[in-house]
C-alpha cells in the first residue's frame, strides 16, 4: 500500500511569513494526526481528525496555527504568522481508526522540516 505522503520535504521562511503543509494519508484511514517534533524531542500532537471532524486540538496554538481536512481525506496545516520557535519537523500520521476495538498502529509520513529565520 502507498504510505502517508507529505509535502514539501523542506521549507525555509522568515518570521512573520506564512506556510502550509499538505498530507495525504493511507487510503481508507479515517484518523489523521499532525505532530510537531522539535529537534531532540518526541512528537507532540497538534491536532487529531476523525474523518473531517476535529477530535483533539487542545495543543494547537490557534492564534497562529490552523488545520483542515475538508473531505475527510487529505489535510493541510497552516502557520500564519510563523515564529522562530516554530522551527521543527511537522509529521503527519494516519491510522485505520475504525472504533474503540481498533488497535492498528500509526503510519507516519517523512515529515516537513520547517526552518524559520
Amino acid at each position, binding site marked *: 500500500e502507498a504510505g502517508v505522503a507529505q509535502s514539501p520535504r523542506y521549507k525555509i521562511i522568515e518570521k512573520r511569513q506564512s506556510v502550509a503543509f499538505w498530507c495525504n494519508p493511507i487510503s481508507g484511514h479515517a484518523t489523521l494526526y499532525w505532530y510537531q517534533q522539535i529537534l531532540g*524531542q518526541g*512528537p507532540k500532537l497538534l491536532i487529531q481528525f476523525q474523518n473531517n471532524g476535529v477530535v483533539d486540538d487542545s495543543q494547537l496554538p490557534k492564534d497562529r496555527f490552523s488545520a483542515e481536512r475538508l473531505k475527510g481525506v487529505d489535510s493541510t496545516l497552516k502557520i500564519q504568522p510563523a515564529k522562530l520557535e516554530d522551527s521543527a519537523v511537522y509529521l503527519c500520521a494516519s491510522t485505520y481508526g475504525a472504533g*474503540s*476495538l481498533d488497535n492498528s*498502529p*500509526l503510519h507516519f509520513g517523512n*515529515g516537513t522540516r520547517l526552518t524559520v529565520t
Partner: protein
Amino acid sequence: AQSVTQLDSHVSVSEGTPVLLRCNYSSSYSPSLFWYVQHPNKGLQLLLKYTSAATLVKGINGFEAEFKKSETSFHLTKPSAHMSDAAEYFCVSRSTGNQFYFGTGTSLTVIP
C-alpha cells in the same frame, strides 16, 4: 490516564552485542503498545506492535519485545547490534479513543 516511560534517554552498545531499550507503561488495562524507530531526517517507522495476542512480539530487523503485565513493561531487544540500528526509538501506547501516547525516546548509539 495512560502514559509510557522510557527509562533511558541514551544507550550505547558495541556492534555485535545485545541491545536492550526499556519501556514501562501505565494503564488501567492492557493497552496496545508499539515500538517505532526514527533515523535522522526520516519519519517514524513501525518496528513491532503488541495487541494482546502473543506476549513475545517479533518485529523487523531482528528486534523483538516482550509484554510483561506483572512488571508493566514492554522492553525492546535485539541479540546483536548493527551499525544501521543507530537511531532514536520511541515506545508508544494506544488508547481506545485512537489516542497515542509517546515516550520521550531513547537514542541508540552503536560503537564499531
